[in-house]
């Protein structure tokens, strides 16, 4: 039996793989016919998964909504880091907004990084449980949305326009962050926690959910507070009880529910960074 057939059969569960490869060996099937047979079964198995509501929910809630929110948080963090690094390299001083201190900025960015790490881990864990054997697809879409939805949204909204000849590798750079800084962010805040979460390698995922929620709430509150200052009070920052209420409800409902707290965070984060076009830019 060819290596291609055995490789295709890897997409099947172990027991079924053994039975199918045994059947093919008994019939003496090999080559393209055997490969077509195995692919047919793999495709049918994958399609059957989508007759259940769970992978659809994973696709919409985790890959779609949570991925988009994580993307907003990741964008806020990368911009914050970029500002600091650029200020250090160009002027040898820390970037200062004039409103918050350098120490506050570093604390906020650290909290944001921790929140992204834990939210990714928790979401990946839930994604795998809901998706089952379709986890490879929903996981891939979760990654793509978390990494690229900001860039795609900018392109679609016209905020970023490419003129002239776009290098052939540019689209690859959206999917796979090629520069070292983006690569570090994606690897350490998305890929590693994502894989650990999917494999349930992180201890006490419930604790992670609580921690991520609290950190995310802190970040959200900080950004909202900044926004209130920057906009001279035009943007009313929600009070802490209002910010924390959904998270408290989420915690009462269980760690799985609390894995979706990122929407208001991302909105507030985007506003604070001037990335949300529906709100006044603040920088």
């Amino acid at each position, binding site marked *: *039996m060819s290596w291609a057939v055995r490789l295709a059969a890897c997409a099947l569960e172990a*027991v*079924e793989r*053994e*039975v*199918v*490869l*045994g*059947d*093919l*060996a*008994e*019939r003496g099937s090999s080559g393209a016919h055997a490969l077509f*047979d*195995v692919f*047919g*079964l*793999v*495709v*049918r*198995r994958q399609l*059957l998964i989508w007759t259940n509501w769970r992978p659809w929910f994973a696709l919409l809630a985790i890959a779609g909504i949570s991925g988009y929110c994580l993307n907003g948080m990741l964008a806020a963090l990368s911009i914050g880091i970029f500002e600091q690094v650029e200020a250090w390299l160009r002027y040898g001083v820390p970037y200062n907004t004039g409103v918050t201190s350098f120490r506050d900025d570093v604390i906020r960015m650290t909290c944001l990084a921790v929140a992204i790490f834990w939210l990714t881990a928790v979401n990946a864990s839930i994604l795998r449980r809901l998706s089952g054997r379709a986890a490879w697809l929903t996981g891939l879409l979760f990654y793509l949305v978390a990494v690229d939805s900001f860039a795609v949204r900018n392109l679609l909204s016209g905020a970023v326009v490419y003129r002239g000849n776009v290098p052939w590798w540019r689209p690859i750079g959206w999917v796979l962050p090629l520069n070292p800084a983006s690569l570090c962010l994606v690897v350490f805040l998305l890929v590693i926690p994502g894989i650990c979460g999917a494999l349930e390698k992180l201890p006490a995922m419930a604790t992670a959910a609580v921690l991520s929620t609290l950190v995310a709430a802190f970040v959200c509150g900080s950004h909202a507070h900044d926004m209130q200052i920057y906009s001279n009070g035009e943007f009313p920052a929600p009070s802490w009880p209002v910010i924390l209420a959904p998270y408290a409800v989420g915690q009462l409902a269980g760690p799985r529910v609390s894995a979706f707290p990122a929407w208001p965070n991302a909105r507030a984060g985007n506003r604070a960074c001037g990335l949300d076009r529906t709100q006044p830019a603040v920088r």
Partner: protein
Amino acid sequence: MLGEFEYLVISAAARCGENGYGAAIREEIEQTTKRSCSIGALYTTLDRLESKGLIKTWMGESTAERGGRAKRMVRVTEKGVREASAFYREVTRATRGLVWEVK
């Protein structure tokens, strides 16, 4: 009511008796219908029939001709026999008095 292919699979499994397993059932279907039967169609149908309680499957012994790999043995349950019998009666009743000839 059973589908056409489900009926074919149950019939083939019943004909194989105690020696019913994936490859044997597939062979039986192909010989009976003179059509090819894909592994995908066979195993997804076996799963569906088992979830309906019409057949029972279990892992059988491995043989040398299968490269030491196990078989998925299949046996038709009483409910499966009743359903297949009902399907056969329905088809027989529906076609009673008809002569299929192309004029």
